[in-house]
């Protein structure tokens, strides 16, 4: 049995330590806000937070997440998360929406570490979050807006 702390709740799961964390989150805990994209840590749709850091849950294994604080899109809270989600809504960032939970999770980590990111900081930090709808310009604007709101 492996114990995972997800969104402040402890869960005992009878799974292999090598199972991708994403499978445990979606299939065992039914938290489906985190999406499966490429399965190879290359698109960012599956980003969650592990002890406050971004983690691609299709690649990070359950055994490595055990003992850490896991936060999914369903569990985000605090001023940065609020500023980001508010900016996302006010600028109507989302098109199809499939990648957006990963985008928001990465944007929160970016702003936690960099209160006033430049365009280049945003480009580098969000580089691994792919959006097939091409909402990159709106995402960048929303991150700037959230940073301004937090200043």
């Amino acid at each position, binding site marked *: 049995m492996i114990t995972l702390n997800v969104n402040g709740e402890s869960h005992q799961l009878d799974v292999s330590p*090598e*199972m*991708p964390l994403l499978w445990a989150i979606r299939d065992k805990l039914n938290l489906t806000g985190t999406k499966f994209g490429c*399965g*190879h*840590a*290359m698109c*960012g749709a599956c*980003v969650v937070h592990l002890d406050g*850091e*971004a*983690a*691609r849950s*299709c*690649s*990070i*294994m359950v055994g*490595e997440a055990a003992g850490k604080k896991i936060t999914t899109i369903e569990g985000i809270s605090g001023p940065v998360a609020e500023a980001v989600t508010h900016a996302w809504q006010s600028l109507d960032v989302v098109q199809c929406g499939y990648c957006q939970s990963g985008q928001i*999770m*990465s*944007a929160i*980590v*970016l702003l936690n*570490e*960099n209160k006033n990111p430049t365009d280049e*900081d945003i480009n*580098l*930090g*969000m*580089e*691994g*979050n792919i959006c097939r709808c091409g909402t990159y310009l709106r995402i960048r604007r929303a991150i700037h807006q959230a940073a301004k709101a937090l200043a």
Partner: protein
Amino acid sequence: MANRNLYRTNQRLGARPGLLIVLLIVLGTGGAVWGQTQSAGAGDSLAAWGKIVTVLQHPRCLNCHQLNSPLQEDGRRIHIPHVVRGADSHGVGPMRCGNCHNDRNNLTSRTPGAPEWSLAPVSMLWQGLSSGDLCRVLIDPVRNGKRSPEALVEHMSSPLVLWGWNPGPGLEPVPIPHAEFINLMKVWVAGGTACPK
């Protein structure tokens, strides 16, 4: 004592003389390597370096001994997604090495992994160096993490370096078996860490 041990071994292997012959060959090879290590001269050292450098310049090592961004795979293309060094050589913001790489290879996502997965420090930039220049960087304590020659030998058995021998599916391991590589390192050090011009 050695004879008695050999005798006992012989008794145990009595019904399998072929095994005894193999054992003697292996022991003999080990002795030859040990003797070579003890009496290595500059010529032996230089010859050993000629093999060592084929490992250090292999994509498994060189791909992360880069200036700002790692390379990937045997074809040595730029890392996808694009990642940069950052202040601690582990990336920036939501694009840190440990965000995707585990402490071991992930056979499901095929993401390679080992403890302390990161770019090598800037002082250990090996990209574009000739064999001789790489050799001189490696033995320079200012650029090699203040390592003595003996510490360099030890470093070649650290978990991140060992990954080069076990890179997981789809990636070619470094070209010389680890035990043989360590013996070459010892010969290179014993002969004075000789470097080509």
